[in-house]
């Protein structure tokens, strides 16, 4: 156990944890940030995706001790109290969400994708979300939503 300082969604948090513990478990169990989900436990499904310095990262694979001096963003840090981010709004409007369990991970993957490539092609979007699994949708409307979000971001 050691005192660990984390910067999450622009705020500083101090937790007393084993530095080898996965970031995902610290977020969920110590900080109550359960928008970050757990599912496959092996870095495949992406429901635990967070942004580390803006890059989509699977938090089940990252020991919390490795991210002490990094800027972390979870789904709770997107948009504002009143307003969703363009990506979140596009996912709602395009019917991209069904059971919704994978959605926070997809939204963060999409934010990161669009930060790197503001107007991706369909192929680039499909490749870009291959680190995330959705069992419900068949991905058609998720790809639609990311295209729509790219358009809305351009109009910002």
């Amino acid at each position, binding site marked *: 156990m050691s005192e660990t300082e984390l910067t999450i969604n622009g705020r500083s948090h101090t937790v007393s944890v084993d530095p080898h513990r996965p970031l995902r478990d610290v977020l969920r169990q110590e900080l109550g940030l359960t928008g970050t989900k757990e599912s496959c436990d092996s870095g495949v499904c992406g429901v635990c995706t967070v942004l580390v310095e803006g890059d989509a990262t699977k938090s089940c694979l990252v020991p919390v001790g490795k991210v002490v001096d990094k800027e972390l963003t979870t789904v709770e840090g997107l948009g504002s109290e009143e307003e969703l981010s363009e990506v979140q709004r596009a996912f709602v409007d395009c019917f991209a969400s069904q059971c919704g369990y994978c959605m926070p991970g997809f939204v963060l993957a999409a934010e990161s994708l669009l930060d790197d490539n503001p107007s991706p092609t369909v192929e680039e979007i499909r490749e870009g979300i*291959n680190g995330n699994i959705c069992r419900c949708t068949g991905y058609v409307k998720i*790809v639609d939503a990311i295209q729509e979000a790219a358009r809305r971001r351009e109009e910002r």
Partner: protein
Amino acid sequence: MSMHEQTAESERTEHGAEASGDGEFRQIGNSMPRTDAREKLTGETVYTMDAYPEDVLHAKLVTSEHAHALLAEVDTAGAEAMDGVVAVSTAADAPDTRIGEFVFDEPIFAHDKVRYVGEPIAIVAAESERVADAAVDMVDVEYEPQEPVVDLRAAGGTDPPVVVHENLREYGTSEEGFHLDDPDSECANLLTTVTEETGDLETAFEDADLIVEDEYEVNPLQHCSMEAHVAVGHVDGNSATIRTSHQMPHVIKDELSRLFPSFESDDIVVNTPYAGGAFGGKETPIVEPRLLTVARRTDRPVRLALSRHQQYTTSPSRPEFRVRLKDGVTENGDLVARDITIDISVGGYDVEAFNIATALSVSVLGSYDASAVRRTTRAIYTNRPPYGAFRGFGLAEVNFAAERHMDRVADALDIDPLEYRARNLLRAGDRNVNGDSLHPCQNEAVLRVSIDSLDDVAVDTEYPEYATDEWEIGVGHAYGNKSVPQGETNVRIDLAPSGELTARIGAPDVGQGSNTAITQMVAEEFDTPAERVAIIAGDTDETERDMQGPSGSRFTPFTGNALRKAAETLRDELTSIASTMSGLSSDPASLRLGHGSVIDDESGVSVSLQTLIEHGKADDSPLFDGDVFSVVGRYEYTDEEHIYWVPVSQAVLVACNTLTGKIEVLRVSTAADVGTAINPRAVEQQLEGGAGQGIGGAVFEEIVYDGGRVVNGNFKQYRVPKATDLPYDSETIIFESFDTEGPFGAKSVGEVGVFPTAPAIAAAVEDALGIEFAVLPMTPERVMERLTDDHPT
């Protein structure tokens, strides 16, 4: 680009619900955004997996390492002595009752014997997950391994090498008088045989000009709900509260009451506000009885989540199916006789196989007309993890065999397979072998339009990357049909003084959008904005009894119709109260609800719901309960005839790699007649998602076993489709023939999207490569094997 939006719109105009029955709808038919979307996108939705109550203990299961073994000893002393371990439970702690959907065959924790790898033997509850994991390793289980039986044919033979349940006929069953299979049965591992025969089969085969026989095989796969099975339970004195990721909270409550006789039924509360996917995999008790056993040992809340690997071993998967089909046809293509035999693997215990076998026997031939049909379904115990329903309750798997066989027969007759299907298709008003009458619907248009829609695809220009020698392109097509049988459901509606309406429904929204559909139905019934409607779902303490759940395509007819009955009673009471008030007509029938009021259109006078509620309270209205009007609606359907049939077809364009055996689905077109589409975009969601799961199961998803052991029980080795595995070019064509029994003319759409996918892909692979496929999945290895077999170099 994706064409689904535009297509759905144009088809709606052409075949719209408005024209066909109930007048114009205000809320039904609108693609309003899903009511749960916003909170799911922000991460605010708290799934059961996210529930960590204060002071929670973490539980883990000790499970069998052998497919078949005697249990010599279970020693928990080492685990109990560990720091941080609060309780360890085994069979010694559990009531002497057995789990089972039909046959009560599975102990809560194994004693004497284990029958599959993954069978729960003990549970530990500890201060942290890490301690719980370590304690699991400290439970010492001594096995005396026995030979397992895992092969379906061997297990189901007359002289099986192993008898899975020696005392099968001594177990209790959920339906008294409904005995297990004939005790003189030649097969000791037979859970049940269901045989139904219609017409004179022998004569029909004699009269046939051609008889075609073949066998088909569908291998097991996993639901892979993103939220695993998880429950959080708390025992407080004589009462227990369990939150669980499940489809059927009311069923779980009943089952826990039966399994734990020390609790009064009303002292158990089960709650599922949402589930992170289910697909039929969360219909039976899995984690709940194990959790409750250890939760009785502590006054703290306890959380039990299955690991991803345990999803493959300890929670149910889709069974192995072997289907034998024999069809008799006339030379001009009339199907006159069908003999179908289906064997399914139960696994070690009857999680759902008995009910699947029963359901299959009545609904296996809903699409086509054949005068003589025999259906035999056998459910056979093996030493594999128990199997259960997966999106279609077995029908999707059997549809693979049945639709492939339609192609086989058409080929033998040298008739176009589409025309062969069309010729034998049941028409509106026809009765199928069950005696079910097909309600008016556009099933022939459904059959044809999906394949027609691929006519204009220019493969060379639209998919140039596949225009090399390595790839062969093929087109395939198949049909399907889902029916909905008997049942009953109750729904409560509350009207608050504020005018807000709350629908209390027993079935949780597991992802299919049921809460949104119900919101639209309530808004329609009371002509009120959807924002004025709240839903409480899946809490046994807050909702009426519901044994249907979102299961077997039953939500829409059962919950929808029960809700309509409650709404009717409530509207009648409101107009009746209004008719006693000055300025309004004294005839309630001339009054209507609208805009939060009861309105008299003739006089132009209206009275607000708030005022009516005050009057109702003062006049002692029988519907008044506390501060609200509260009404229960009940819908019961008891006819032998099924409620309705939902026709569906799919056409696919595939590319097959002749060097690697890889199959890529480039385009899928799905058509279905869903009755009134309550929310057309949500209908598309279901059909697109069904096709996606269908593609995975057709081309690569398969649980691989070594004997009784799952060897690929994780997402690294068991491939769940990713975005690049599924086509973005996806078209959904919705037909809306108003159904006479469905609420607002609507039918169910949750399951059918997966029905034709695998046979359509198999037909496309045959078109591309000239190889016949009778086995699922069509993995690259199997494709290469077939290519080498059929075209030896």
